[in-house]
């Protein structure tokens, strides 16, 4: 039998009429409970995925803001330093989209910390000592905003050092065992460099970004480092901050065309490979959690619709007897299921936006990559809502189809 648009429209009209009456005049307790379960299932899906998104976003943000900025130029593979670095930085700063750039030296050394100055309980740590030009560095990274004790370096500081809390060892550091186990502001730390030069420094500042890769660093000034290693106008790395208008890899081509041919050019992503692995793991976890959440919502709706249809088997039989088409009955239950899903999703979104997001902004979760808040991704939310609706359609269809296919006599009289 062919269906006309008029037939379809009329069937929809009757189905929606029945759903509207069932919801507005039906059992309020069941309605509220069902919506509560779908709301919680939805919040669970979004919350878990947004925490993971937040963690990944934070890790990426940390890498760019506090670790290596957006692009890193390293010396050519057979060179120890980048030469003519001042001229290079001047050229780089003319590139459209470049905010600023900063050069660093890196020199191996052994840090030595004698807290009581009695050669007892001396703490030593072999590490890569880095230098910064503070005036340039503050335009490229944000470490100056994460000082938890003391102050940031200034350009003319010669006997001062700043370090991340994972090096100092205090302030709740995670890697106590390999740290200086409690170097404080004003303490003296000596460094024996790889070239044999020995210098003493006062700890001027300690910072904490909550990002171990950034917090496992020690910085002195560029002027101090050049006096130690006896070079000038060179660098071990040049950090470039971009404005984000185009992906970073676009800049590699632009830098090459500027004449930076031999040096290695990398983007920040190349320095946090382990986080890419984490992203993949998180994606798997998100999929599992989403699947379980949808299953919970779907099964709940299925049970509600199943009980409703079983309890109303006789009425459904009578509706069929008086001439109601099975598809109208089935559609009415599907619409009811979709209603539960949509309302659950809407309530869930409200709770997330009004309560959870502001809460986690005020109280971010401390994680090994930083303080993490919820990062809501529109695409994820849209997909979750759509999935809930699809699941609810199935959950509404199956029980109603099972009951409506029953013979009228059997449905009414058993």
């Amino acid at each position, binding site marked *: *039998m062919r269906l006309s648009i*008029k*037939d379809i429209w*009329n069937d929809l*009209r*009757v189905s929606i*009429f*029945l759903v509207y*009456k*069932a919801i*507005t*005049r*039906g059992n309020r307790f069941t309605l509220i409970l069902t919506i509560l379960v779908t709301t919680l299932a939805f919040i669970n899906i979004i919350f878990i995925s947004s925490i993971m998104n937040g963690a990944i976003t934070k890790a990426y943000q940390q890498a760019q803001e506090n670790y290596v900025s957006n692009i890193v130029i390293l010396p050519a593979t057979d060179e120890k330093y980048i030469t003519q670095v001042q001229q290079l930085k001047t050229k780089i700063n003319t590139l459209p989209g470049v905010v600023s750039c900063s050069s660093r030296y890196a020199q191996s050394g052994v840090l030595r910390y004698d807290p009581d100055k009695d050669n007892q309980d001396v703490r030593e740590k072999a590490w890569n000592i880095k230098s910064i030009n503070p005036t340039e560095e503050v335009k490229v990274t944000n470490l100056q905003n994460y000082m938890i004790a003391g102050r940031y370096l200034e350009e003319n500081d010669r006997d001062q050092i700043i370090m991340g809390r994972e090096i100092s060892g205090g302030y709740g550091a995670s890697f106590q065992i390999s740290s200086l186990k409690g170097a404080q502001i004003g303490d003296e730390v000596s460094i024996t460099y790889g070239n044999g030069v020995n210098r003493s420094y006062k700890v001027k500042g300690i910072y904490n970004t909550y990002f171990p890769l950034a917090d496992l660093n020690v910085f002195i000034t560029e002027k101090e480092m050049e006096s130690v290693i006896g070079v000038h106008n060179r660098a071990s790395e040049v950090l470039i901050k971009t404005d984000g208008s185009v992906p970073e890899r676009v800049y590699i081509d632009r830098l090459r065309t500027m004449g930076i041919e031999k040096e290695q050019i990398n983007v920040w992503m190349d320095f946090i490979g382990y986080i890419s692995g984490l992203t993949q793991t998180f994606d798997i976890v998100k999929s599992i959690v989403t699947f379980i959440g949808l299953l919970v919502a779907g099964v709940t709706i299925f049970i509600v619709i199943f009980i409703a249809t079983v309890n109303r088997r*006789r*009425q459904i039989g*009578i*509706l*069929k*007897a*008086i*001439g*109601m*088409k099975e598809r*109208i009955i089935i559609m009415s239950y599907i619409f009811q299921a979709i209603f539960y899903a949509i309302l659950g999703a809407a309530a869930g979104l409200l709770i997330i936006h009004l309560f959870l997001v502001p809460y986690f902004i005020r109280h971010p979760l401390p994680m090994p990559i930083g303080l993490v808040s919820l990062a809501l991704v529109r695409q994820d939310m849209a997909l979750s809502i759509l999935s809930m609706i699809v699941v609810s359609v199935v959950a509404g269809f199956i029980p109603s189809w099972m009951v409506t296919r029953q*013979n*009228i*006599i059997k449905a*009414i009289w058993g």
Partner: protein
Amino acid sequence: MPVEALKGLTFEIQQGEFIAIMGPSGSGKSTLLHMLALLDDPTSGSIFVDGTDISKLSSSQKTTFRLNKLGYVFQEYALLPELNAFENVYLPLMMLGAPARDYEKAARGMLETVGMGKRARHLISQLSGGEQQRVAIARALVNKSRILFADEPCANLDSKNKEIVLKLLRQLCDELRQTIIMVTHEQEQRLYADRVLWIKDGQIDREEKVR
């Protein structure tokens, strides 16, 4: 083991007739009503309404035929509890695709006919058994059904409401020439019918002309 509920029944019903089908328990009277009402399929045989063999219609055609041509009153009222009396009555017309203005007017008229005009906005749970049965009758007739099937319509009613319902059915038959086929096991109810078909062991035992 198959059971022959009905064995070779043949009879005719005229338009406007009120037929009571009676017989002992297990005689096949409900089975006969279900067949006539297209709620069940005969193993063999035909059912003709206005010259059309309705027993040969497809499932969806039977659904459409029931909606358009037949009306039902069940033992337990069988109204939708989430709808009020008015909504229960206009539902079949809504299913037929009538505009809201038309089906509301028809429902109002039918409720007045069965004496439930003032209780139209009440939910079913707010109505007595007799009132519910009258609403069920209104619903059965709102689509101008050719035949009204009533399966023990007074079984759950007290004597006062039984009388009200039976008088209403008789009135519909007299004033609207409504064809009614009613199954009942109560002797006194047959007096409202024009004719009684007595069923015994799946066959028509005898016919009794009452009026």
